[in-house]
């Protein structure tokens, strides 16, 4: 599918293939990013062929605008919804990772757990598609259906993802630049979640809330997701670290009020730990408090 980005950007697909590719595109952030760049490129091909339009065209078009009613904007939350859909698809993937876990593996205990997603990839993919379709249709009861095989945390992740998509986090994204970074990060995160060697670790934080880490040893990257961490006063933030024997390296800050947090950690390797500490707002250069959660990284 991916190789069609170019033909799609040049309108060189027939109607059927175009429709199929567009369906694929909705759930492929990296294709979206590529199509976007290739479209900009194709636009330059048009600019290279700019020609003087017939003189009468301008008057005709301008006159027509006075007789033509304009379309109303799409519902106000459209941008958010689009981003939200990406996020929903991603969280569906995350939930699917959980779904591969042994049922006895209860996520609420305080030590880390892992599972290997390599089992049964094909049916995973099917359920991903089902999940994606479901997220298209809306956020109804479908979330709790059978594609989620491991009940508790999965349900929670799924429910939280709905909350996230509808409200938190996404509403903060407003300017184009923020949208762009959100999309780029989103694509990078999707890449980790889709990595063939992705492994998942989950733990709960000492003061409440859950931390999930999806690691790809091949990509040396980890996606850190938090859910339901207690709110902090405005002078404190959660800071995420990659901790190794040689010290701690900051991954970034989590909003102290968002219900769901998500960060991408690069340069992660087996033996490291992902840790979260409470720090003064603005963050610290090294951890100054005992971590509220640590998750071991194993490859």
């Amino acid at each position, binding site marked *: 599918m991916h190789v069609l980005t170019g033909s799609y950007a040049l309108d060189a697909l027939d109607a059927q293939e175009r429709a199929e590719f567009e369906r694929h595109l909705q759930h492929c952030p990296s294709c979206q990013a590529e199509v976007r760049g290739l479209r900009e490129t194709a636009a330059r*091909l048009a600019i290279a062929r*700019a020609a003087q339009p017939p003189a009468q065209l301008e008057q005709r078009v*301008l006159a027509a605008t006075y007789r033509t009613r304009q379309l109303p904007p799409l519902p106000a939350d459209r941008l958010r919804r689009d981003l939200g859909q990406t996020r929903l698809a991603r969280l569906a993937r995350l939930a699917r990772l959980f779904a591969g876990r042994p049922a006895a593996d209860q996520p609420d205990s305080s030590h880390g757990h892992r599972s290997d997603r390599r089992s049964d990839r094909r049916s995973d993919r099917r359920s991903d598609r089902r999940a994606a379709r479901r997220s298209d249709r809306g956020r109804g009861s479908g979330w709790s259906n059978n594609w989620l095989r491991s009940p508790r945390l999965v349900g929670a992740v799924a429910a939280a993802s709905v909350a996230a998509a509808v409200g938190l986090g996404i509403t903060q994204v407003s300017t*184009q630049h923020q949208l762009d970074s959100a999309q780029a990060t989103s694509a990078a995160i999707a890449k980790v979640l889709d990595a063939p060697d992705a492994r998942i670790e989950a733990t709960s934080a000492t003061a409440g809330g859950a931390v999930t880490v999806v690691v790809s040893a091949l990509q040396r990257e980890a996606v850190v997701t938090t859910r339901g961490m207690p709110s902090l006063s405005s002078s404190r933030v959660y800071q995420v670290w990659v901790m190794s024997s040689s010290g701690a390296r900051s991954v970034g800050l989590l909003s102290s009020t968002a219900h769901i947090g998500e960060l991408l950690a690069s340069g992660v390797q087996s033996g490291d730990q992902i840790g979260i500490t409470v720090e003064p707002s603005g963050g610290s250069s090294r951890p100054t408090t005992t971590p509220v959660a640590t998750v071991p990284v194993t490859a």
Partner: protein
Amino acid sequence: MHDMSRPEIRAARPDPGPAEGEAQDLAFLLAQVARGDHQAFEAVYGQLAGPVYGVVRQVLRDPAQSEEVAQEVLLEVWRSASRFDPARGSGVAWVLTMAHRRAVDRVRSENAGSRREQKVASETVTEYDDVADIVETSLEGQRARRCLDSLTDLQGESIKLAYYGGYSYPEVAQLLGVALGTVKTRIRDGLIRMRDCMGVMA
């Protein structure tokens, strides 16, 4: 190895988009157009009528038909300006994607018959290099042509036939006598190379 204090969260590259200043103006203008501002629309027309008409005529060839389609596209910009979403790409790309697609759809709906096939058979690739009265263009247009010339023959021909010729990739494959998969790959590789050549980021 790592700077311990530097956050490692991946920051997105800022997106300079197409002609930066111009594109921003265009996004602004389109927002004005969405509110029914006729003057803003005239400015948009001034920026885009040339490329719109040019690309439509490149694909359709027939001047009268091209004028008709260009008019439709430009009026569509007026009509649906509220649907332009700067988060998804530049205004230039939004409008020119619309223009190209309309032209291509027109060609395909008309060419269920044999006329096109005959044309396919007789068409030569070089035709796309010498269309008359191309407006002497922006630096950007010149750059695009240079970048297009820097591709391998097969990449360049595939892209020209697909975009300027309005052919589907199976038609392009047939014209060039190469496998479908090869054309798909050449189109993508070539476009990526052009993108990098022109410094488009997305």
